């Protein structure tokens, strides 16, 4: 196992370098960020030249990339155009998004798996059909519609929640945004669990377990669910990365100053340092999540062994 972890960690290095290089090239292709810094008036050439030099934009891209990567390894992610350190931006944005992601994942696990088990065990019954229909609706309605609708109903019409999240973004205020963010994934988790459970229900080991006279609860949680969770865990693991980077719609609607919003701002203002910095961290998150998922397989199903 240890060897496997080391190998996986080593594999992360080229992925990491490749991904950051790609992002770096893409942001640079977008053109000269200094041109947008002065608003509708042209920056005077002398100041523009100085700014370009200060941000290292006057060097060839490969050199910019090398300097950047060199700095990253010393924990220096550069400075955004508004004079803030990118690490400072990260230290405010990531905790918020992590909290939001936790809320979303908890919803996915709690509601998604519960519904999945329920419907998987009662295939074809009204509960199953009902949940299937609901998940279909949730999947087909875009997140921003769900978000705006909930915000309007719960926040403005009924006054149950505050429509916008305060800068501190405590867990309490993130419930509804988290639910909105989780909604689509939640529907997939439900369907995935349902199928998996329904399939495994007929398998030999479940029959054996029942024949052994094990209590139903134990059969379901220990034998059926444990084996059915493998595809679900894969999905949720990959989803963590998606939720963190892709929360942009939810974050805008609910005024959450998280990673998605910072990335959006960075792209709008063509702020290379912010975009590359945040993406670098997100790439790491993705890679780590994948690693954890792979390790979890072995826990869930001891038959899966890695050399």
């Amino acid at each position, binding site marked *: 196992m240890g060897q496997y972890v080391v190998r996986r960690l080593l594999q992360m290095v080229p992925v990491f370098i490749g991904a950051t290089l790609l992002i770096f090239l893409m942001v640079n292709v977008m053109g000269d960020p*200094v*041109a947008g810094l*002065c608003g509708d*008036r*042209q*920056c005077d050439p002398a100041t523009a030249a100085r*700014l370009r030099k200060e941000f290292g934009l006057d060097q060839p891209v490969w050199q910019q990339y090398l300097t950047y990567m060199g700095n990253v390894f010393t924990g220096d992610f550069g400075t955004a*155009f508004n004079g803030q350190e990118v690490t400072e931006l990260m230290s405010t944005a990531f905790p918020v998004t992590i909290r939001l992601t936790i809320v979303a994942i908890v919803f996915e696990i709690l509601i998604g798996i519960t519904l999945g088990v329920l419907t998987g065990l009662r295939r074809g019954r009204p509960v199953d059909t009902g949940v299937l229909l609901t998940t279909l609706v949730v999947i087909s309605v875009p997140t921003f519609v769900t978000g705006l609708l909930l915000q309007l109903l719960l926040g403005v019409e009924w006054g*149950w929640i505050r*429509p916008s999240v305060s800068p501190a973004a405590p867990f309490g205020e993130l419930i509804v945004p988290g639910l909105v963010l989780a909604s689509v994934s939640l529907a997939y988790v439900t369907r995935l669990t349902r199928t998996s459970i329904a399939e495994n229900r007929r398998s030999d080991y479940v029959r054996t377990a029942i024949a052994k006279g094990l209590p139903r609860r134990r059969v379901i949680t220990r034998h059926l669910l444990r084996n059915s969770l493998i595809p679900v865990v894969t999905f949720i693991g990959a989803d963590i990365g998606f939720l963190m980077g892709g929360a942009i719609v939810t974050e805008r609607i609910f005024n959450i100053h998280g990673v998605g919003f910072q990335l959006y701002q960075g792209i709008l203002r063509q702020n290379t340092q912010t975009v590359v910095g945040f993406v670098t961290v997100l790439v790491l998150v993705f890679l780590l999540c994948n690693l954890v998922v792979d390790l979890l397989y072995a826990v869930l199903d001891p038959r899966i062994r890695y050399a």
Partner: protein
Amino acid sequence: MRGATHVRWAACAMAVALAATACGGGGDGAGAGGAVLSASWTDPQNPLEPANTNEVQGGKVLNMIFRGLKQYDPKTGEAEDVLAEKIETTDSQNYTVTVKDGWTFSNGEKVTAKSFVDAWNYGASLKNNQKNAYFFGYIDGYDQVHPAKGEQRAETMSGLKVTGERTFTVRLSQKFSSFPDTLGYNAFVPLPRAFFDDHAAWLAKPVGNGPYTVQSYTKGSEMRLARWDAYPGEDAARNDGVTLKVYTDNNTAYTDLMAGNLDLVDDVPAQQLKNVRADLGDRYLNTPAGIIQTLAFPFYDKKWNRPGSDKVRKGLSRAIDREQITETIFQKTRTPATDWTSPVLGAEGGYREGLCGQWCDYDPAAARKLIEEGGGLPGGQVKITYNADTGSHKLWVDAVCNSINNALDNDRACVGNPIGTFADFRSKSTTQKLSGPFRAGWQMDYPLPQNFLQPLYYTNASSNDGKWSNEEFDRLVDQANAETDVAKAVETFQEAEKVVRDHMAAIPLWYQNGSAGWSERLSNVALNPFSVPVYEQIKVG
């Protein structure tokens, strides 16, 4: 073990849910702290320094925490003395400024002539990378501290001299009679020693001399401003303070206003314009601001700069149904333009309604005829370039193209040409890489006709992206700047504007309005000519 974990999760979720209901529902967030109002805000794009702030959001704050020699009247836009006791000149080139007595910064330091001279020298200096440095361009010696190329040759501008504790002289490199009127701009405010001594600390918590002081500033989320009780000016704040909250989206700010969590929104989102009257009634304001939108042309491109092409431009102008577009797309939050300045200047200040004349009237038949006489559209088609990321430009560009296509009875006469980001759009338009008309907008720096004409149409001026050049126009502008009589100067600027019209250097589209919506707690809300709320006059409760 597994079961226990589940129980814990459930408990957590319950607790969280309870907390959620506990903090929701009240809608009392805005009310906290007595007569403090909360207002929507967007994080400034640049570090918050007077000479480095070139957009509205940062300018808002500077307006609250600083007072300069002059201030523009929120209603008339006229430049009125604030810290200036007098600004004297005999030749429109050498000015003697006397600063009023009794003014201090909120940290107790006296505002002296040196506070101004140091601040201006800092702003102009190339090594400080200030994006508004060009504001000091008229002052003698600017080319030494801010050369167009190479290293800076002097630390301070030779045109600025402190002559006493409260007096200093300004020598300009050319005659500029409206110079005192430009001094209301944020770049010209005085700076305390603290700014120079501990720059980082100042940026984290700016110190100024205005009606408000910065209480706390959390970058990216909010700034709390409190009334400065010892403020010596006449326009002391009528409320206890303002909390500027950063919003990710102005729609969310509007929703928060509806839910009672926010007091003031100064940019009502376009999507809400239909409902705003029903939602807010008379707690909604929609007044012209010093912003004009135009279509500029690439005069560096031969196709647009040949004999007769002015007829094509005039034809295009006549093919645009401004009335209909401002009504249907902008819900009357923009006013069809009939000149190249803005109504906020007022008739005396240089705005001339209808100066554009027939060239801005919608007339499809005349448009077709003009374009035909001018040799037809270059390449048979115009592409209007705009940036698609902000400002919902796509909406109106498509509408303008529709209008042109209908007028010319040709589905392919005009198409929009979106560019992904503002930065990319700017870099293409400033490096002369566009081949057709492109969106141009101008938000005034100070309410003077000079500001609407010179930067945009003077040969090689800073925002003359289309590189239009006309000797007569340049001559008239120079003449107007040198004119000591204000009325005469305004008249000469209008002569220059007629040259712009006769060549249709840019097609004026519409004047933009500023908008604001507020909660029932507030009264006396107004927008200044820059479409920024006059915070210090707002009453709470």
